[in-house]
């Protein structure tokens, strides 16, 4: 009996290893993903904003990370900061200018692995009509089957910073910080 269990266990582990080694395409699950930013306000505290509408997909191959792909599109009009007049201001022509630039995009160009679960993604961020490279530190939290819906899923956390002035957003520089922290939490479902 012990031998049978051992054989089954070995087969399961081998299958799991095969699944993990093969490249898979994923679609971002908006209901479990978050894109936040933080920017200094007068040196007192950081204001937090988030985008509630975005989409994207990525291709992940744990055995060959450099061959991965990533493309994310964020609807700038979905910005929220918990204060309606500020939201209106930030969506206006002086900041995100959602009328002229309704989307910002991030397309990964360089994927580097640090260790089994961490790495960096460098990509081109197009924001406010300007495209600049931005590097994100990424932690691949988990790849596996979601126990609730039984779909293969992947989850990652990404952190990074950018200078808003690089993207032409220079209003109130000084009182409002130039460096913007990015906090990204992504859960994605494998494409069937």
């Amino acid at each position: 009996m012990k031998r049978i269990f051992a054989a089954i266990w070995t087969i399961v582990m081998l299958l799991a290893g095969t699944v993990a080694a093969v490249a898979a395409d994923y679609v971002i699950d908006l209901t479990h993903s978050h894109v936040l930013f933080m920017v200094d306000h007068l040196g007192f505290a950081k204001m937090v904003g988030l985008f509630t509408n975005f989409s994207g997909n990525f291709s992940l191959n744990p055995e060959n990370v450099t061959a991965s792909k990533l493309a994310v599109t964020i609807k700038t009009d979905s910005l929220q900061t918990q204060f309606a007049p500020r939201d209106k201001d930030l969506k206006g022509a002086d900041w995100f200018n959602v009328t002229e630039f309704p989307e910002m995009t991030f397309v990964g160009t360089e994927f580097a692995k640090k260790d089994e679960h961490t790495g960096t993604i460098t990509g081109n961020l197009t924001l406010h009509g300007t495209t600049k490279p931005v590097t994100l530190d990424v932690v691949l939290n988990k790849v596996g089957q979601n126990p609730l819906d039984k779909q293969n899923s992947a989850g990652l956390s990404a952190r990074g910073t950018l200078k808003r002035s690089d993207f032409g957003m220079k209003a109130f520089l000084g009182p409002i910080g130039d460096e913007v922290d990015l906090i990204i939490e992504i859960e994605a479902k494998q494409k069937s």
Partner: protein
Amino acid sequence: MLDNPILQAALICFMLGLALAGLVRLIPAPSVASLVPTVVFLSSYVMTYHQVPAFPPVGAVNKIFYIALAAALVGFVLDFLRTTKLDRALAVIVPGLIVGWIGLPRFAYGDLEALTTASALWLGGAVVIWRLNVVGTSTAERNGGSLVGIAMLIALMVAFAPVALLGGSSTSLMLCFVAVAGLGAVAIWEFLIPRDAFGATSVLGAGSGFLAVVSTVTLITREIDSVGLALLLLIPYAGQLGAWFLPPRIHGRARQVLVGLMAGSPVLAVMAILLLRHPEFFASMRAEQ
């Protein structure tokens, strides 16, 4: 109080206006003196947005700088040639070009609301540019002059500042206040040593810059209070209307000061209307501070 970035920028612009308007009094060239309000406006822009935008400009906010610059250059050529033949035509054409260029991204989608708003802006802009030209280049006896022209520009910017804030553009509010500080310094010189140099450069440069700001908030930020904005059109006529009640014995600088103050009187009406129409907004702004 001086650690407030808006006040700091306003103070710098005031000093700049004071220095430039004083310096041009040493130069016997009205076309150069007429550049000052435009230089003040452009400086206000740079201090507000911390940049001279790259050319070609991307986005409406960056277009503002080049609109003011290009219009001022056209005005400078006209002032240099001492011709007024094109004044009427330019009062119609220039606002049309400004509104058209700023609103272009919305027109591209066949946005009917944008076209209607742009048409109204064009009409209003033409009125403002035309009246700035008539009043600014006129004489005190005809209720005009450089001082009245600058007062009109100041009144337009002060009145538009809360409209801009309400319309989701605190940066435009800052731009207006900084420019007003610089123009205020120019007004002081105009009062002390009148120069009567409010030529086409001032009208087209500063006037077009202002119109570009209004167009950006209206067509791109798109949260404008149309009643407050429409009331701005009282400013180009308020001085002239008020002057009917001024006895002829009040003349010269005294008349210009009074006409200028009357041109600014609609500012109070704009602010009162905005407060009445949006009490919750201004209460929330106070709470934020």
